[in-house]
């Protein structure tokens, strides 16, 4: 990556307070030129406020935002080198597609024939050729969104801001637009900054994700790191599905560690965690990383039938809930200690879901590199 190059957006110690409510709390982050950056968080976490501060619709209470090295503190929205695609799309209802897309160029006094060419080019880019004379109320939500996209892209901004771009679309269209947006970003090479509460959206499109919680950055990482190496319980829980158990760190060496979880038993890891011995920690374990067995069947289980040797992760329980989702089946298993653990199992063949049913006694194991130890 271009670590040495100056970031296109620098957010420095930015806070935003509305009266007594702190929406954004001392956030500092850099967004690199050309990346697809996603601000991910639950509603009300301050991610939209952060985006609106980049656009200039809100001013930071404290801190500084630099775009392309220039301080934006005194620059109004209409003078900033960024453009925004609004959650409601905000397509002008009294203008047809051509006039909507050409609006910004007309305002800035670009010659007519250049406007015509650039509008046509932008419409081609978002696959809206042939819609030039349509009025917005004759178009679907997805088409209006493309108009909003074209209207921003035609301005050739340094950064394109997208506020919940896919939230109003139905599931199929959303999946398609995820690919299209990523593709579009690749094609135009403009930095995209997207706000979303949808983790799938974030994981599928982003080059890097900042998870925001209560106005603060909980973790900033590429999607796979976010999922596989969450930094804290909030991120582990917000991104994907996860089982979290509280425990005590009883062993911590460079190549192995163990956490004693009252609800789950002893959890072994094949790496150190650099936490203080005896510290209160949490184990995060993804449902798909747990293998399920009927006790007494199979090689792995025969080993487990005896007391598991040190370094072997094993638990037993009873199936209390099942939901068949087609590609996977989700099991809710009550552990011997009474706690519930969620396990997902891919249906690799047509009859896989018949292997287990309610009230079956099962045993589970997982690899020593699967659990993540969280200190907060």
């Amino acid at each position, binding site marked *: 990556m271009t670590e040495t190059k100056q970031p296109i957006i620098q957010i420095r110690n930015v806070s935003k307070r509305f009266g007594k409510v702190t929406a954004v709390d001392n956030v500092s982050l850099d967004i690199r030129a050309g990346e697809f950056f996603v601000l991910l968080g639950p509603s009300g976490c301050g991610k939209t406020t952060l985006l609106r501060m980049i*656009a200039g*619709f809100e001013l930071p209470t404290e801190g500084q935002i630099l775009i392309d090295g220039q301080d934006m503190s005194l620059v*109004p*929205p*209409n*003078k900033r080198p*960024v*453009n*925004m695609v*609004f*959650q*409601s799309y*905000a*397509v*002008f*209802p*009294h203008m047809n597609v051509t006039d909507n897309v050409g*609006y*910004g160029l007309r*305002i*800035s006094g670009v010659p007519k024939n250049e406007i015509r060419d650039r509008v046509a080019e932008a419409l081609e880019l978002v696959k809206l050729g042939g819609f030039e004379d349509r*009025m917005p*109320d*004759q178009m679907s939500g997805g088409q209006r969104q493309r108009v*909003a996209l074209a*209207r*921003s892209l035609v*301005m050739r901004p340094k950064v394109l801001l997208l506020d919940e771009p896919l939230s109003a679309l139905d599931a199929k269209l959303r999946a398609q637009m995820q690919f299209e947006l990523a593709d579009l970003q690749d094609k135009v090479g403009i930095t995209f900054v997207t706000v979303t509460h949808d983790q799938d959206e974030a994981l599928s499109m982003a080059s890097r994700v900042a998870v925001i919680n209560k106005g603060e950055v909980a973790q900033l990482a590429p999607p796979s790191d976010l999922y596989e190496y969450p930094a804290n319980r909030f991120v582990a829980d917000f991104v994907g599905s996860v089982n979290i158990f509280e425990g005590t760190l009883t062993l911590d060496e460079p190549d192995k560690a163990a956490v004693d979880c009252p609800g789950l038993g002893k959890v072994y890891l094949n790496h150190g965690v650099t936490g203080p011995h005896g510290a209160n920690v949490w184990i995060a374990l993804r449902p798909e990383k747990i293998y399920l067995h009927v006790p007494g069947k199979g090689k792995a289980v025969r080993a487990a039938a005896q007391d598991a040797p040190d370094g072997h992760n094993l638990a037993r329980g009873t199936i209390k809930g099942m939901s068949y989702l087609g590609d996977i089946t989700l099991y809710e298993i009550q552990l011997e200690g009474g706690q519930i653990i969620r396990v997902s199992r891919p249906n690799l063949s047509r009859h896989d879901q018949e292997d287990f049913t309610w009230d079956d006694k099962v045993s589970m194991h997982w690899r020593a590199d699967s659990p993540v130890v969280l200190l907060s």
Partner: protein
Amino acid sequence: MSGPLQDWKSQRKPFAAIASAPVFWLALFFIAPMTIVWLYSFGQNAGPADIDISGTLDNYKRATEWLYLSIFLKSLAVAALTTLICLIIGFPVAMAITFAAPKWRPWLLLGIMLPFWTNLLIRTYALMALMGTNGYMNKGLGGLWEGASWLRTLVGMQPLEAWTPVQLLYNNFAVVLGLVYVHLPFMVLPLYSALDRLDKSLIEASLDLGAGHFKTFMQVVVPLAAPGIVAGVMITLIPALGAYLTPDLMGGTDSQMIANVIERQFKRANDWPFGAALSFLLIYAMFILIALQSMRSNKVKEAR
């Protein structure tokens, strides 16, 4: 058909039952008297209390004489000026209410509507008290004048001559001011409802695309508030055109409007047929205005 009373075509009886009372009311107390007045306009006085409906067009001929036509045109000009001033004052007021904090909005709207709860006559007299030669407006102006005079003495200039109260009442200025005062709420409310419905992100989108506040106002706010502007203009212009009390109380001898002329025919002149003809000319003029407006809004709909 998802429920009862959805479409009057398929459920004639219940709708006839519901509609009969208002239809009866309108027929008895609106259409019938209006028809009588309309018939009077084709008649002539046959005695102090008798009107002979002879089908004559003399009343209309007289009503279109320059003497009356000029008053009519002047009424139109005064009403148009009133409407324009109401629009210029009302738009920022409506914008201010739209962008006020939500908890303030009902109170601001209440402030706009509060004058409606007071009798027009009382409001007019109150305004007249304010504008009289000894009223607060003159006192305020006099205070400013004296202040200016005192400032002149400070810098060693001659003081201004003594303040003589300005004649604010009983002229066309007073009529327009009074009409603006009375009709402003009629303008503000439809403007507010149009602006309130306007998606605020459209304004932000315009700013985001490089337009300044003025361009955004002209290119986005005004076109999208157009239905509210038209509605506000219509419901200001039409009552202002027929204004009677304000020019009667606040106007001078030369500022009578068409309604004052009509009133004189029915009362002092006791010439009901001529008054009826004048009234109907006014009504026709209003019909034309409304027809023009609905033709325009149909055109807008077709263009979509």
